[in-house]
């Protein structure tokens, strides 16, 4: 269970938010929303331990994530504004290496299955730098399918995806939630996700 207790965020001399509380159960979806610059990205980075809250605490199963670190990282996948893919490696290499670094070594068969699912079939052996914006995002998102983690933290995952891919990603998220996974997500697009437990967190 992921829990935020009175989390506050200061960037520069500006306090973005304070006293933010949230809690996310198994199978739950937390949608963080708010206008541009309200601190969604900042909050998500705190949730995966990339930065520290100015005050307050984020807990995973009751323990502060700062103390857990590696144990916590093992069950989280974060996909942010940056794709986290290497321009010079091919699509397959990127997927294999990034999942291996997340602790999930996958065979090349698995990899090509995942890539087919995500709509990159036929482009497995192209270097990522020649791909289009939307295809690059797909390479990053493929990691969700390749790694078997519980908590997904996604910063605007639908950006640059075409209609079919948006639909696909929605289904992937729904399946993950049904299997007791957890998702934290921001998006400016209106996308309906069917899930039993949706929490909205509005930053102003």
């Amino acid at each position, binding site marked *: 269970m992921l829990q935020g207790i009175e989390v506050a965020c200061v960037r*520069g001399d500006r306090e973005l938010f304070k006293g933010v509380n949230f809690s996310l159960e198994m199978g739950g979806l937390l949608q963080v929303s708010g206008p541009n610059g309200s601190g969604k990205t900042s909050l998500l980075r705190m949730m995966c331990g990339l930065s520290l809250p100015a005050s307050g605490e984020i807990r995973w199963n009751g323990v502060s994530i700062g103390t857990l670190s590696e144990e916590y990282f093992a069950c989280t996948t974060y996909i942010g504004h940056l794709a986290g893919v290497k321009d010079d490696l091919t699509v397959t290499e990127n997927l294999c290496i990034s999942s291996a670094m997340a602790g999930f070594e996958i065979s090349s068969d698995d990899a090509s299955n995942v890539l087919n699912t995500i709509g990159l079939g036929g482009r497995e052996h192209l270097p990522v730098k020649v791909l289009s914006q939307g295809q690059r995002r797909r390479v990053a998102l493929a990691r969700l399918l390749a790694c078997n983690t519980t908590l997904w933290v996604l910063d605007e995952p639908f950006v640059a995806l075409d209609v079919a891919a948006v639909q696909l990603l929605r289904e992937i998220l729904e399946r993950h939630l049904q299997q007791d996974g957890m998702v934290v997500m921001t998006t400016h697009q209106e996308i309906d996700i069917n899930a039993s437990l949706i929490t909205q967190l509005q930053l102003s």
Partner: protein
Amino acid sequence: MAINWFKYSSPASFYSLAGKMIPLFAAAAIILLIMGLYVGFFVAPTDFQQGEAYRIIFIHVPAAWMSMFLYVVMACWAGFGLAFNTRLSSMMATAIAPTGAMFTFLALWTGSLWGKPMWGTWWVWDARLTSELILLFLYIGFMSLQAAIDDPRRADKAGAIIALVGVVNIPIIYFSVQWWNTLHQGASVSVNQAPAMASTMLMGMLIMVFASWMYSIAVILKRVRIIILERESHTAWVAELQKEGVV
């Protein structure tokens, strides 16, 4: 985290404390400076070997000592800030660096102005001189790193790491340079063989060292107050100060 910081030292209370202490140190610095200069120029006799040129010693040695002390002090504050996450310690480290660099520069400058009449050259690659030069680079590295980082928290930590690595390195540099130097012919005059000093000379020098200490403390406190204001501008107590028109 915030509680942790305040447990050790709160910038707010330090700010006013420092404000009260600055005049004291400044006054002490001025008095000692006048005394030291008087002893240096009017009491201490002419050196029989070096003539009047030796009077550079009254700033050279204080500057050289301060340059090294201040680096160690800076590294300690920085390390303390890193270990205990106390904002104030890191601010102290940041505030010390420019003054330390200034003293290092002065030691180099006065040393070469002394070297020209004594050794016949502005510069030799002697162990002490070389390590002083490298010390200047370490200071500059520390300051540029902090200047290049906008986020103060990151600047503090990164600066602390480089200051600590540097402080470990200083003795290594000193000994390596000394060793390197002895393999070749040594410098024509070594700084180690300073002439036995007249007691008035020694006294003048020591007074100047104290004056430098007082000056450094005053300047550093003044700088740290500014840094506190810059960094804490979003807090309530600074707003309070502002309303009172103190800032």
